[in-house]
């Protein structure tokens, strides 16, 4: 039992470190992403640099620009890359980890050819047009309609929580093609050129004041049938592939506060705090770190982590929210008016972001259901709308 790399892993890590040392420094990016153009350009450039070296698609065949590597090698690269604060994140990974793997599994050879390389090289950035005002946890409830018209599809509807829609070149879209079928059966999966007419992107202001997400209004948007992925009515199956490719949360986000920050802040300010509560939060934070090491051990052995991996985000988001709230409470009104105190601003951010994380990518309740059903084998939820035409659902 140890935390060490295997000889092969150590060799790969050394190779990655050397490459990053030579290449990464000029792409270092401040955490602030308010300069959208600057950030986007840097993200594209950094992605190209990685693609040229094979690090953009570590698991892909060498003939297609990859390294034929293992999931563990991907993790090692991400860990080492994180030390450089380079621009990586959904702006790039929605394309590389979600859109392209889906196209490669369900798309035509022409579609694979058209999108793989430009995405890999950072030329094509993607957004995900899945969620809607009434389709969040219940994603199969999408109401955006796609109606066939000659060689085109005409799309009308509204998407929401779409990160980077204002920047993306292309989007992956889930739309309803046949409301007379039950909800999971009447959807189809499309690719959307985000420069098309009929797309209006409106930023959503979040509780933190930032605007990372958008509403996207689709009005008489025309999509050629050549941009359909998979058969008509197979959209749910295709979307599942996309969601399965959402990456395991691998690297600790340096911009978020941790329990030690909270303890240090209280001690520095000479403020007493609930030590039992702090210790409990620390057992969660570190338990999560060691849980991740256990999951990586599974990957390292070439096995797939079990469904209990879903607990990572559940514990992370709740711990973040709880510890941030606790730190703000200690500080009294200084926690409310941070007045330039960076650590206090970090807790404010953690308190806001904790709330978002508890909802995004599987809300707490959905994750608990998943653990109960997939890990413990308890019965699934009752679905009263499962077998009736979508048009008759509430």
């Amino acid at each position, binding site marked *: *039992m*140890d*935390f*060490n*790399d*295997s000889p092969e*892993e150590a060799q790969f890590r050394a190779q990655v470190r050397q490459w990053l040392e030579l290449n990464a420094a000029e792409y270092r990016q401040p955490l602030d992403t308010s300069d959208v153009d600057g950030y986007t350009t840097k993200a594209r450039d950094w992605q190209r640099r990685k693609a040229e070296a094979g690090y953009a698609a570590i698991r892909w065949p060498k003939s297609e620009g990859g390294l034929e590597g293992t999931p*563990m090698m991907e993790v090692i690269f991400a860990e080492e890359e994180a030390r450089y604060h380079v621009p990586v994140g959904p702006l790039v990974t929605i394309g590389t980890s979600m859109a392209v793997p889906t196209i490669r599994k369900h798309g035509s050879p022409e579609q694979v050819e058209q999108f793989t390389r430009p995405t890999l090289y950072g030329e094509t950035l993607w957004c995900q047009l899945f969620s809607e005002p009434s389709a969040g946890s219940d994603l199969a409830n999408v109401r955006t309609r796609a109606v066939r018209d000659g060689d085109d599809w005409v799309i009308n509807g509204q998407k929401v929580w779409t990160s980077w829609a204002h920047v993306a070149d292309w989007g992956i879209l889930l739309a309803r093609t046949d409301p007379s079928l039950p909800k999971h059966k009447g959807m189809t999966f499309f690719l959307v050129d985000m420069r098309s007419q009929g797309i209006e992107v409106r930023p959503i202001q979040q509780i933190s004041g930032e605007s990372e997400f958008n509403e996207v209004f689709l009005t008489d948007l025309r999509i050629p049938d050549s941009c359909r992925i998979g058969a008509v009515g197979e959209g749910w199956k295709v979307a599942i592939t996309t969601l399965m490719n959402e990456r395991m949360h691998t690297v600790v986000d340096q911009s978020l506060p941790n329990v*030690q920050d909270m*303890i240090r802040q209280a001690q520095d300010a000479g403020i007493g705090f609930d*030590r*039992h509560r*702090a*210790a*409990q939060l*620390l*057992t*969660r934070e*570190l*338990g*999560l*770190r*060691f*849980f991740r*090491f*256990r999951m*990586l*051990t599974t*990957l*390292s052995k070439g096995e797939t982590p079990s469904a*209990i991996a879903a*607990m990572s985000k*559940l*514990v992370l988001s709740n711990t973040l929210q709880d510890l941030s709230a606790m730190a703000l409470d200690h500080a009294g009104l200084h926690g409310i008016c941070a007045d330039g105190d960076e650590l206090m601003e970090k807790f404010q951010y953690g308190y806001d972001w904790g709330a978002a994380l508890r909802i995004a990518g599987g809300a707490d*309740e959905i*994750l*608990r*259901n998943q*653990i*109960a*059903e997939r*890990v*413990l*084998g*308890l*019965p699934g*939820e*009752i679905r009263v709308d499962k077998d009736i035409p979508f048009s008759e659902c509430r």
Partner: protein
Amino acid sequence: MNFDFSDDQRMLRDHARRFLSETSDFHVLRKVMTDGAGYGKALWQQVLDQGWQGVAVSEEQGGLGLGMLELCVLAEELGRSMAPIPFFNTVCLGAELLKRCPQTGGDLLQRLIAGEVILAVSLVTPDHDWSATPFSFAGGKISGSSGPLAYGAQADFAILPVRHAEEPALALVNLQQAQRTPLESFDATVPFARLKLEGQPATLLCSGEQARQVMARIVDQAAVLTAFEQLGGAERALEITRDYALERHTFGRAIGSYQAVKHKLADMAVKVELARSNAYYGAWALQGGSDEQLAAAAALARLSASEAYAYAAQECLHLHGGIGYTWEADCHFFYKRARLLAASLGSSDAWVNRLLSDTALQALHS
């Protein structure tokens, strides 16, 4: 990354689980509570026959020559089965202590490995200072009265912290002549007794700084090993509750189909997995960590496992409904064992303070 037990260690776990599931069920526990022996004698003999008492003792010293990780594996399985035997005090505390005092404790360790003796061990837990130990030693004799001591009435020998010329020391005393008063135990499957010693002959195992260091090490080890015991119990409580939630129907549905029940079980599973992850860190620290890392890991593993077991045991009883409150159902075994193990190494305050100490935080974040 290799943060897991080895294949051999997993085989030992599988073997131990099979053996204990065949030999140590709740009937054995119930029998122990009523027959007055204090422990399952036949089961203890079977465990001794397999050599588990020497699992972490070197072959030169007569043991199996495996290690602390194997002892962690056994602790988890014993926690799962709640086997009513004096393993923890004799092996996890006694043998570990004697190993560290080879000159003075070597003979008794041989007898322990041979399966001839049961030991009771009193610890100096983090909430106490050595100066508060109730025993004094002078001129080869020991005097004082103990607090509740596990298996105090069944043990052949006790290892006790003593004050010796104002120095800390560890004394070994034969309990044949000791006055022992059995105590009623909230967890009736683990017997306790109070010892009263009035000038009984005793020998010193070690003293001064060595005694302090040995005791600190044993207490940290005990916290990690207890965490594995707690983990085993918590996971079994979860499994039993899951099975019951699938079997029990209300309003025409299995109760395990209600989110209120599913989510509780999911929370149990999450706490168990966090506790397991922290316990693994403890196991790693036992085997190869620095003293500072072990001290921090011990507190981390202990607090995490205590929380998981408390939650699992309480919700196990609760989700069984009224039947869970009966003597006939098995939930109370977990319910009370969770409390015993959370209390067995001193108050949680002291462990919290240790986890939040500067040295621990530094060790955990390095």
